[in-house]
C-alpha cells in the first residue's frame, strides 16, 4: 500500500514537472512553432504520467479504466491538434523563427 502510494507520487510529480516545462516553454519560446513544439510534446507525456500515477494509486477498477480512456484520447487528439495548428500557421505564411532574423 505504501509502496504503491510512493510510486504514484513519483509518477505524478514527474508529470507535474513536464507540465511545468510545457508552461515555461509556452511563455518563453520565441514563435508559434516552437511554442507548440513545447506544449504538444510535454503536455501529452505529462498527461500519461499523471494519469498512470492516479491509476496506480487507485488500483484496477472502472475509474482507472476511464482514466486510461482519457490518456488514449489525449494521445490521439493532442498531436493532431498541434499538427493542424502548425499547418494552418504555415499556410497563412507565418515564417519560422531563426537565429539571424529575429
Amino acid at each position: 500500500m505504501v509502496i504503491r502510494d510512493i510510486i504514484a507520487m513519483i509518477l505524478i510529480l514527474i508529470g507535474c514537472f513536464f507540465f511545468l516545462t510545457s508552461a515555461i516553454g509556452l511563455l518563453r519560446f520565441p514563435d508559434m512553432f516552437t511554442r507548440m513544439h513545447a506544449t504538444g510534446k510535454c503536455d501529452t507525456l505529462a498527461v500519461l504520467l499523471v494519469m498512470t500515477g492516479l491509476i496506480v494509486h487507485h488500483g484496477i477498477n472502472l475509474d482507472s479504466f476511464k482514466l486510461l480512456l482519457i490518456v488514449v484520447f489525449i494521445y490521439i487528439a493532442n498531436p493532431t491538434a498541434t499538427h493542424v495548428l502548425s499547418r494552418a500557421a504555415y499556410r497563412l505564411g507565418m515564417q519560422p523563427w531563426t537565429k539571424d532574423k529575429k
Partner: protein
Amino acid sequence: MLRSRYQDIIAQTIVRIMVPFVQIYALYVLAHGHYSPGGGFQGGVILAASLVLIFLVYGYENALERLKLATAGRLCSLGVLIYAGIGFLCLLLGGNFLDYSRLAPIFQVSLPRARSLGILGIETGVALAVMAAMYSIIMDIVNSDTGNGESHAAGHEIENGETSSDGK
C-alpha cells in the same frame, strides 16, 4: 466545395475516428447526469462539438450534408417540445409542472423510477435543443461572415499581409 489546399488527410482521418466516440461520450454524459457531473446541457454541447469538428475539418457543405440547418431548427423545437410536453403532462395529471411522480401510474413503475425516467426524458429534450441551437448558431455565424461559406477568404488576406511584411 472544399478547397484542396485546405484538405488535411491526418486531421480528416483522426476526426473520422474520433467523432463516433465523442458522440457516445456525449450520450454517456447525458444519461449519467444523475450520478456524476453532466446532464442535458453538457451532453448537447458535446454533441454539437462533434458536429462542429466535422465542419472545421471537412468544410461547410459536408457538415450541412450531415445535419441541415432546417433539420437543426426542427430538432431544436422538438427538444423544447419534449421538455414542455413532459412538464405539461405532469400538470394535466394533477401535479405541478415537472412533477414526475404523477407519471408513475402511466408507465407502471415505482415512484423513484418515475422521477428518474422523467429527469432523463427532459434531459434528452434539453440535449436535443442545445445541440441544434449551438450547431445552427455556429453555422450561421460562419455563413454570415463570408457570404458563401468560404470561411478561408479572410485567411487569404492575412497570408498576403504576412508575406509582404516579412519580405521587408
